[in-house]
């Protein structure tokens, strides 16, 4: 029998095949946008060559929140309770700042029950890639509107939403978030660049990904359907992410270019697609966003970027090593010190 040996699997810069970045089999509906995002997350960590064991995965509750089980099996993960992922992630990442945190949440998990923790996570600028898989509905509880549903968008069974949506990006920018992006699970290339940049960002990186729910919110009349998103997507720019270890020039089409460098030497390269848009000018960004809302445009891209903003971890000024590894020698004052302290209470 003659057979060619199977080609050795392609490996990344730390020598791992992509399979080492995969997770358990998804149990989501066939075609669910969330599964597409999962794939992009796998690719992003693999391409960046981050050791899986250094990643910590977080989520709340919902179809979207199930996905951390579907990527990076070799990373630890926490499926917290509904809407409380930010606090759990904060605690874990403070305890061990060597971990690279990624959180996946849904629009219900974030904008409804979880909006309080979201606001305070952003306020603290806790380093965490925060992906909202936004489908405008509660998928797991069978399709009720969430707080990001647009005015006039209809439910599958009829019935239109009449409350103004919470724009998580607008909110994050107003709260001072240093990395705010919006994307679409159908725009894989853009999402990939955004994810890589977010992972490189040392602060909260909010990515609001429109990720259609094919079972409950993909019909005519929905503004979060594949078709609607595809038809209305307006990329603000093309994005290239050049990681610090990459010396090849990012392949970008000709046109106007703006580079935003990260503290670690990585660069986000914005290539204008005709619009005059500066992702570092907050007022312009907000005004553009507001205009687009009125115009029912679906703007995507890295809406706002401020890579130098100090993170909570740096404000707390804790030691660089994980607090989890410190022993009695570093943590427990001496017997003499105890005696000295107690002397004050005599």
């Amino acid at each position, binding site marked *: 029998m003659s057979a060619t040996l199977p080609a050795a699997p392609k490996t990344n810069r730390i020598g791992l095949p992509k399979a*080492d970045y995969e997770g*358990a089999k998804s*149990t989501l509906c066939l075609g669910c946008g969330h599964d597409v995002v999962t794939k992009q997350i796998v690719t992003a960590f693999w391409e960046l060559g981050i050791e*899986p*064991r*250094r990643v*910590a995965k977080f989520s709340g509750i919902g179809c979207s929140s199930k996905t*951390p*089980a579907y990527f990076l*099996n*070799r*990373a*630890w*993960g*926490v*499926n*917290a*309770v509904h809407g*409380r992922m*930010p*606090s*759990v*992630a*904060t*605690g*874990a*990442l*403070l*305890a*061990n700042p*060597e*971990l690279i945190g990624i959180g996946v949440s849904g629009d219900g998990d974030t904008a409804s029950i979880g909006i*309080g*923790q979201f*606001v*305070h996570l952003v306020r603290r600028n806790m380093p965490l890639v925060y992906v909202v898989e936004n489908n405008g509905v509660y998928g797991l509880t069978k399709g009720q509107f969430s707080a990001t549903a647009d005015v006039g968008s209809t439910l599958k069974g009829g019935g239109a939403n009449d409350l103004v949506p919470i724009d998580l990006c607008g909110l994050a920018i107003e709260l001072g978030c240093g990395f705010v992006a919006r994307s679409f699970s159908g725009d894989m290339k853009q999402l990939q660049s955004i994810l890589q940049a977010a992972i490189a960002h040392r602060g909260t990186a909010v990515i609001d990904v429109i990720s259609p729910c094919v079972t409950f919110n993909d019909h005519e009349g929905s503004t979060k359907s594949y078709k609607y998103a595809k038809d209305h997507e307006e990329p603000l720019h093309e994005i290239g992410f050049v990681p610090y270890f990459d010396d090849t020039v990012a392949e970008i089409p000709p046109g106007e270019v703006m580079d935003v460098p990260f503290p670690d030497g990585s660069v986000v390269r914005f290539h204008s697609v005709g619009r005059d848009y500066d992702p570092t000018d907050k007022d312009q960004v907000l005004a553009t966003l507001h205009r687009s809302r009125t115009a029912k445009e679906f703007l995507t891209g890295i809406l706002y970027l401020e890579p130098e903003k100090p993170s909570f971890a740096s404000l*707390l*000024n*804790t*030691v*660089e090593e*994980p*607090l*989890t*590894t*410190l*022993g*009695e020698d*570093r*943590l*427990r*004052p001496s*017997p003499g*010190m*105890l005696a000295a*302290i*107690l002397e004050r*209470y*005599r």
Partner: protein
Amino acid sequence: MSNAPSTTATAPTGVVVNDFSLQVATANGSGSQTANNVLLRSIFRMGIPVSGKNLFPSNIQGLPTWFTIRASRHGYIGRKRELDVLVLMNPETAAEDALAAAPGTSVVYEKKLAVEKLRDDLRLFPVPFSELAGKLPLPPDQAKLRRLLVNMIYVGVLSDLMGIDPAEIEASIRRQLEGKAKAIDLNLAAMRLGIDHSAAAFQTKLPHRVERMDATTGKLIIDGNTASALGCLFGGATVCTWYPITPSSSLCETFIDLCAEHRVDPGTGRALAAIVQAEDEIASIGMVLGAGWAGARAFTATSGPGISLMSELIGYGYYTEIPAVIFDVQRVGPSTGLPTRTMQGDVLICHTNSHGDGKHPVLFPASPEECFTMAQAAFDLAERLQTPVFVLSDLDLGMNNWMADSFPFPEAPFDRGKVLDAEGVERLKETWGRYRDLDGDGIPWRTLPGTPHPKAAYFTRGSGHTELAGYSEKARDYVENVERLARKLETAREMLPKPAVEERPGATAGLLAFGTSHYGTTEGRDLLEHDHDLPLDYLRLRALPIAREAREWIERHDVVYVVEQNRDAQLAALLRDEMPACAARFVSVLQYDGLPLDATTVVDGVLSHRGRTGGAR
């Protein structure tokens, strides 16, 4: 009605030495705290067992506040319901306080309050406090300071009336105002003003006298929250998250101060602990669980409303088996209740917290030294058992000043529990599962995020899971898992602090108390023995679930008086469920008025039950 103040009253019939309860009535924010603490410390320095209780309003300024000092040569430091000496400084409450006093009570009061118009059966000591304060050498624009110093005048008066050594007062002032020379001088002047005035005005002194003894050597005057914070420091806590709430805030605030001093990395100057004032209690417990999951010793401190809010995440911590330490410094519920009063009202919600099934280890410190040791034990237990552990203190213990035994230096290393490192994973990789009971004690092994081994990682979820931490809705997986959790609680039972027991020969009935109910109960027990010829055994429960020793003790007694500071007899309910065969033996003695339990409640409770059941021993 004669309005004669006590200067002209008959001399005290008998002198009582080192045994009194003294209450100072002022207004919140009037600065009496310093004076009261000086008073307390002076008596302490004279070697007399003493405790101080501050009864303050849930506001910041202007409402009535009472500070009670109890001195007892017998060593009783719980609250005494009966007051021997009153100092009335607050016009708002003077009449009410005076009218409520027992005949014969000694009352020192601001002369303008004219208490003598209300009662002629008290020993009255009118003092023109504000007039005296006017004599202090202060510029006229210092009216506020003058109002503060009034308080030190009553300290002087009491020094003279009761025999409190001015030298100890001076030492206490110096210590209290550490280094603030000008303030020290003024306070000393105020004290002397009081002493001098009293010496001149009152020939007959108070029947309650202070005399030096030697019962406080090596002891501390400290509050429970400070002690708990020290326990967290020495117990190796590295993550503290909190949301301010009375009466727990000072626990975390003290921890912050301690870390600023003792948790700075000498090399880098950076912090060896992360402390977060969270946005609310749900976030605090979420952060604690995140940190515990990552492998840090993490805690939060709160009070009842915080526990209610944390319930969902506490149940999550139980089911996912994440170490966490929760201090509940209890106050009066339900709801906002009386935020500045004490209660043992969270026993049930802590032990059985959250929906679905679940029981959690609860520690009951009864003293500052136990706050110190149990805080440390809580971290060991949380990591060993991989579960949230409650330390149930209360306002009385947490915020009041207690005479306490000194704290032992912890010699044992931290017990970090069953943690597998890369090598361990390698060794066990064929058999290990995050939720597999390899040792038969219900406690599985965990790995910490980041462990460098490709098989080390696992996924944590509050939904059903297999031994290998996979998602599961299978009936068998669920049943086996929750039965293992029940088994784990049985393991905990053996690990938790054992009850403290005191026996009386021949007693067939016993008193059972926990936490701060200890003080009123033991004092009441002495009274029952001495005044009513009723010796009772005593067991102080130090943890839930109850230890085997406690079960056996209960089984040996026909009647067990369960003393609690709540309306619903929450501990008794738990005991009845634990020991159905003994359920009818439990007789509840309850106090739930927001004040610390006193011995009279215990005596009355036991006697009235005896009356009901025919008085048989």
